[in-house]
């Protein structure tokens, strides 16, 4: 049976923890608004890019020659998994669920006899995956010092991936990140970026405009494709940033609520034992007086 002082101390520490989790929740809420806006503003570019690329690829396909970034060169023996996670913990299952999705697909690829390489963006994912895939991780990129993720960071990662692809280090590249649906729902997603999976064009009846190219088609395509990869990476990072804050917000909300529940229970116990003690003392005094 804990003493009254123990109980008092414990209630005090739970209250302090609750204050911290409440503060973290509010910080996450403020950051979430910004991150969500950034993610939404980045969508138009990615969408337009996809449309232009689809048009280009369709007309390039008729001429026959496709760059390796578009059709993957027909090989799929080596897979590169780019796992984007957060830099910090205390955000519920956010990091763990992305890492789990990446791990599951790595295992199923290995079971098919493919070689798997990993590239971790964000410290937490690296920490989780390091144990199982130690030597298969070719690089771990930390973005801790970056205050707000923008195109330059994404472009640096994109260029790295394109350079690795050019050096034949891998054939297929998939990005793992959490898509931001809402504050309570973040969906871990795997998106293949090399070779590019383009949406199917509408039925055969649709008339395609015959584009003219300033600089020939191939040159434009070869400039556009690496750019598209950087853009997709950026989209993943921005979605991730919003998801992370959302996950942290709901995790901290839960934590504050649990702390409240704990305080309630322990206060009850504290009051009970205090009353029990008073009763005990009274009984002692009364029975002492009766004995006289």
């Amino acid at each position, binding site marked *: 049976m804990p003493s009254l002082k123990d109980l008092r101390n414990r209630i005090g520490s739970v209250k302090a923890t609750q204050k911290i989790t409440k503060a973290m929740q509010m910080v996450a809420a403020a950051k979430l608004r910004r991150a969500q806006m*950034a993610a939404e*503003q*980045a969508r*138009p*570019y990615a969408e*337009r*890019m996809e*449309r*232009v690329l689809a*048009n*280009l690829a369709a007309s390039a396909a008729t001429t026959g020659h496709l760059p390796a970034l578009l059709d993957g060169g027909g090989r799929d023996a080596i897979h590169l998994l780019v796992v984007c996670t957060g830099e910090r913990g205390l955000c519920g299952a956010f990091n763990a669920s992305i890492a789990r999705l990446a791990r599951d697909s790595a295992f199923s690829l290995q079971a098919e006899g493919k070689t798997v390489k990993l590239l971790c963006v964000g410290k937490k994912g690296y920490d989780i995956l390091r144990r199982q895939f130690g030597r298969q991780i070719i690089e771990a990129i930390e973005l801790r010092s970056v205050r707000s993720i*923008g*195109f330059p960071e*994404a472009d640096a990662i994109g260029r790295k991936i394109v350079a690795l692809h050019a050096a034949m280090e891998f054939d297929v590249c998939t990005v793992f990140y959490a898509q931001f649906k809402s504050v309570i729902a973040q969906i871990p997603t795997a998106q293949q970026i090399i070779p590019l999976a383009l949406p199917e064009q509408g039925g055969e009846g649709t008339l395609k*405009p*015959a*584009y*003219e*190219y*300033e*600089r020939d088609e191939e*040159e*434009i395509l070869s*400039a*556009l494709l690496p750019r598209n990869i950087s*853009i997709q990476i*950026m989209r993943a990072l921005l979605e991730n940033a919003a998801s992370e804050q959302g996950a942290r917000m709901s995790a901290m909300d839960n934590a504050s609520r649990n702390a409240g529940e704990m305080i309630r229970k322990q206060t009850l116990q504290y009051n009970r034992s205090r009353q029990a003690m008073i009763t005990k003392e009274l009984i002692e005094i009364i029975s002492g007086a009766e004995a006289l």
Partner: protein
Amino acid sequence: MPAFPFELVAPEKLVYSGEVESVIVPGTEGEFAVLKDHAPVISSLKPGIMVIEESSQAKLRLYVRGGFAEAAPSGLTILADQVLPLDEVDAAKLGAEIEIFEEELERAGTDEARRIATEKRDQLLELKAALKM
């Protein structure tokens, strides 16, 4: 002049979206103006000045650091790498832009990359001279 839909997007956000009368685009092969019902064309952009004419009175001048333009029957879409309003561009900013490509030139591993970076740097130097900065 009849208006047509125009969209200018940068990686971070949608910069401009609306009906315009004409847009002068700094294409790699030379500047060209796009009016309503322009023939479908896809062009890469050089670093340069873009002029958006909403009406004969309202003109918008922007600096773009390259990217792509797509003129389709549905309108003109420009995917720019970086967009700055022209009055925010000064000698120092332009100098920084030139430096970006000079760094790229140093990093460039292939002849092709080197050629592209040199070309872009020269285009910027030209622009700087044209703006008399």
